[in-house]
């Protein structure tokens, strides 16, 4: 009994250590790489103020604080800040490959490596994980270098309705060798609430206002179980007049090779009815910090549920089965005459032969 207290103390210590280890997985919101996060404030005191630093080294504090990079802290990348900083000496900068070695190696084998480094597309102080961006944001990155008009013309050499394709798809859907895809849906809103207005990705503030201050997802997820059923999706499409959902086919794992793959020129890669690629889907809901959170949607041919969307339709993929049956009935109606009349015609052929002989 006299060892009871030390045994309890040791057991509790081990349990607490285990709990902390499990909850502290990298990427979890509560995770901290140590004490560096606390030191961000010292850096951002100057670098977060546009009046004190040049544009090149200014960091948007609000956005930066939401990134995974903020969690690992400034010194994780800029380890050797000279004592004389800011008056003298260069601040060291870690290469992206030091943490993202696999991406770095893959990128080195791709087409872009000769054109730009990681920074060319990703601002390390604003970077979000692929889960936190909408499809259109991915394309915005590409359009920094690839002029949209030029790309439309270039794709138009072989791709029907190239402008429509480029507007509705993230570039990486075709230009990565991903094997698994999901449908990423995001909420769009007509410009000036006009039915014919151009549809743009609805922002956080606007959606918050429309939802009456509630969580944005409650516009779609009526029972607020953080899971959208196909029925809830249909209901949203029918009930909303100004908001719509657009679906984008997005790779699950984004590769950085940016290949030109011939099999993606096979239209049936996307344009077939309910392929396995289109069974998993999420709704990208905007967050206050400018990122997006994913709300899972019931598995199934989700694009078929978007009936209320006036300008979303995927030829060959999102067809209505009830309509197919009506079409078949119409064609069968057209066959009544040849089949029915032809049959009686065959049975009564003697009548006509007799008359012909008489005449």
């Amino acid at each position, binding site marked *: 009994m006299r060892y009871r207290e030390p045994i309890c103390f040791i057991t509790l210590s081990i349990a607490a250590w285990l709990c902390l280890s499990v909850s502290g997985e990298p990427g979890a919101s509560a995770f901290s790489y140590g004490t560096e996060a606390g030191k961000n404030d010292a850096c951002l005191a100057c670098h977060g103020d546009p009046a004190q630093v040049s544009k090149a080294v200014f960091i948007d504090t609000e956005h930066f604080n939401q990134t995974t990079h903020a969690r690992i802290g400034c010194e994780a990348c800029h380890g050797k800040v000279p004592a004389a900083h800011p008056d003298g000496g260069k601040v060291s900068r870690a290469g992206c490959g030091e943490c993202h070695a696999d991406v770095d190696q893959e990128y080195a084998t791709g087409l872009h490596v000769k054109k730009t480094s990681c920074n060319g597309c990703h601002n390390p102080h604003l970077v979000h994980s692929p889960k936190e961006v909408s499809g259109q944001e991915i394309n915005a990155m590409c359009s920094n270098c690839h002029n949209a008009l030029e790309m439309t013309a270039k794709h138009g050499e072989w791709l029907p309705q190239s402008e429509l394709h480029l507007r509705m798809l993230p570039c990486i859907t075709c230009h990565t060798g991903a094997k698994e895809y999901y449908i990423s849906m995001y909420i769009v809103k007509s410009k000036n609430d006009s039915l014919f207005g151009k549809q743009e990705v609805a922002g956080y503030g606007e959606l918050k206002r429309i939802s009456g201050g509630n969580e944005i997802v409650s516009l779609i997820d009526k029972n607020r179980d953080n899971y959208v059923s196909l029925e809830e999706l249909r209901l949203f499409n029918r009930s909303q007049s100004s908001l719509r959902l657009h679906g984008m086919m997005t790779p699950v794992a984004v590769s950085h090779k940016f290949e030109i793959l011939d099999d993606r020129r096979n239209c049936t890669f996307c344009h077939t009815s309910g392929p396995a690629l289109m069974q998993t889907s999420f709704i990208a809901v905007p967050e206050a910090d400018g990122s997006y959170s994913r709300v899972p949607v019931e598995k199934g041919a989700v694009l078929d549920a978007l009936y209320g969307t006036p300008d979303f339709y995927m030829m060959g993929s999102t067809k209505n089965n009830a309509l197919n049956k009506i079409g078949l009935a*119409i064609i069968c109606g057209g066959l009544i005459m040849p089949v029915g009349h*032809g049959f009686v015609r065959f049975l009564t052929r003697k009548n006509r032969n007799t008359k012909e002989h008489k005449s």
Partner: protein
Amino acid sequence: MSENSSEKNRIYLQPWPVRIWHWINACGIIALIVTGAQIRFPESVALLPNYKSAIDIHNVTGLVVSISFSFWFFYYKMVKNTLDKLYIPDEEDLKHGLVRQLLYYCFWYFLGRPSPYHATPDHKFNPMQKSAYLAVMFVLMPLVGLTGILLLNVTPLRVLVLMWGGIKFIVALHFLLACSLLAFLCTHVYLATLGNYIKPMLVGWEDVEEHEEKPVAAPAAIPGYRPVRHYPEYEVMQHEQRQG
């Protein structure tokens, strides 16, 4: 038409612009049906080597058929000025002609009686043909063409697409209209085998048989029967009435 005896029994029924238009239309519509089926059902229809070729052929053929349709309309309306007369059923057609033609197809034909209608260049179609072609040429064809043009230009014509109810509605309409055209095509081809319709559409001329020139006695046994204009019996009746 010549007056000499050798051509006396032939009538020039289908002028060459109409024949060219008809066969462009025929080949075009078949190509559109085949490619359209592949576009809508890529997982089960693969008559063309790939989806893109189906889309390309569908788009080009659709445009060719639309343009040839416009020429057809222009030719009959502006050049021949007979569009209304040929395609819009008149009062007599509606009152009696339709029923008579229907009776012919449903009963008289099987009994071996001759067709109550004989085509002339100004009245090429029997009342049933007129009604069917009116629906096909003035409703189905223009609508299927217009919806096709909208789907071909979704981005530039976005406002028009939305005014029509959106892509999904236009696709549904385009599909149902196409099914209706296919249904019509089945009936059209079958009915062409009933009479002497295919040869004039190939060469333009129709051979008129001798007995058709002779007055045909009105089938008095049919209750409510009354001969109408364009039918051989009508002339007999007019003649008898004049004679008192």
